[in-house]
């Protein structure tokens, strides 16, 4: 479904991503894990067109995204919940959701909003509230809900558990599983390796811009290297 081949991303002279290749198959949950600064967010931003790779290719459902402008990518069926959520803080909850459906026909928006509220009843209670006044957990739900509004085939999530209490992390991961069961393929970036590996079909481990290890979630959770580096044991 998504096939990333040999991408190289630079910030000025900093070579942040070095010859990275990975794949996501339809119906999978794939996770990219790695320490701070490993390059996880950079990879997601490159896939969604906010950053560009020097060379390589990014194939998604038979089309090459590497030269498609960022604003045309969501319509291809690929949604991205960015690091730090980046919801529109001065707009209402519902307007944020409406922006998520920017590329879709108006006639389908209400149905999609109802679907988001089904997964996140708390957003429904707060639909007229200004997004900047939501709690951190609610903001994360809004960021995910907003991405769902585009009806993505592949949903990319960048550290959805960041800054949340363990109960909320559990809640967010339950929703990720729900979305997956309803047919959405998921590419999950996490620092919370334990959590991520426990839901993932497959995982890639990133270190200083390079993929150093790959395997199924179950394999990696048992691997000594991973235990030492990421699972505190």
């Amino acid at each position, binding site marked *: 479904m998504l096939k990333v081949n040999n991408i190289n991303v630079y910030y000025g002279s900093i070579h942040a991503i070095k010859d990275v290749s990975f794949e996501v198959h339809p119906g999978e949950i794939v996770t990219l894990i790695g320490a701070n600064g490993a390059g996880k967010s950079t990879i997601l931003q490159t896939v969604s067109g906010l950053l560009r790779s020097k060379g390589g290719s990014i194939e998604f459902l038979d089309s090459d995204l590497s030269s498609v402008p960022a*604003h045309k*990518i969501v319509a291809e069926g690929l949604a*991205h919940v*960015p690091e730090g959520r980046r919801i529109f803080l001065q707009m209402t909850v519902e307007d944020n959701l409406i922006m998520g459906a*920017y590329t879709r026909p108006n006639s389908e928006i209400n149905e999609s909003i109802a679907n988001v509220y089904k997964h996140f009843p708390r957003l429904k209670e707060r639909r007229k509230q200004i997004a900047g006044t939501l709690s951190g957990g609610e903001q994360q739900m809004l960021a995910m809900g907003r991405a769902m509004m585009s009806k993505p085939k592949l949903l990319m999530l960048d550290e959805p558990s960041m800054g949340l209490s363990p109960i909320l992390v559990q809640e967010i991961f339950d929703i990720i599983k729900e979305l997956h069961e309803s047919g959405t393929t998921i590419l999950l970036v996490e620092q919370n390796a334990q959590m991520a590996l426990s839901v993932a079909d497959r995982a890639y481990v990133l270190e200083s811009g390079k993929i150093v290890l790959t395997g199924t979630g179950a394999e990696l959770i048992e691997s000594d290297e991973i235990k030492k580096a990421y699972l505190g044991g």
Partner: protein
Amino acid sequence: MLTFLNHFINGISLGSIYAIIALGYTMVYGIAKMLNFAHGDVIMVGAYVCFFAVSTYNLPPIVGVLLAIVICTLLGVIIEGLAYKPLRQATSLAVLITAIGVSYFLQNAAQLLWTSNPKIFPNMFGGASIKLFGGELIIPVGTLVTIAACIVIMIGLTLFTNMTKMGKAMRACSEDKGAAQLMGINVNRTISVTFAIGAALAAIAGVLLCSAYPSLVPTTGSMPGIKAFTAAVFGGIGSIPGALLGGILLGIIEIFAGAYISTQLSNAIVFLVLILVLLIKPTGLLGKQIREKV
């Protein structure tokens, strides 16, 4: 008492013009995060277009206004596309200097095309006026039209930015361009549309301004431009209600300072008030600051 009322109405009318100009500054600043110093000069171009349409070609005033709007809108989009768009990734200082350059370019081009001899702007409202209190208070129709235009524009823009998809997309872009792109919003096109709206408003402001102060020269737009920019900052740059409030207050302060303190000092007083407001409330009267939760 009647003189006071008269000054008050004149203040609101002048303030309405500032508010309409300030809206252009504030909307462009909100989305492109730049001070479009050429905005004042678009006003001047609008006034010249209307002048030639009405005085030289004897077209009806409304056609003159519409022509001014169309030409300024195009001009706004062209300026953005040629001068500012290539600088999207540049430092804000480079953009500011370019904007000042565009401003001088427009003034010099106007001088070359139309000379610096003042043109006497035609009276768009046929000199009609309304007499109140047994003829003691005379309000020109132009004054009322100016205030009405400001109210209509204000309501229209508020509805546009809050209710329409394009308007919401503009607000999304002004908050976070990257996130807006992830939603599928074409940021470049949205910025162009914002410039188009700002320039159309500048054309209207130019016609209203020159109807009230009929001497038209290539630098006609620069002082009102700077004052409207002041009004936008005063009200809280980026805020639409702020532009209205800032513009009206500025107009009232200017007229009253001129009438009761000193005509020569009225501009100085206007800027003094701005400095005081910014010392007390750095974001301007209605400027808001929402902090991100982590």
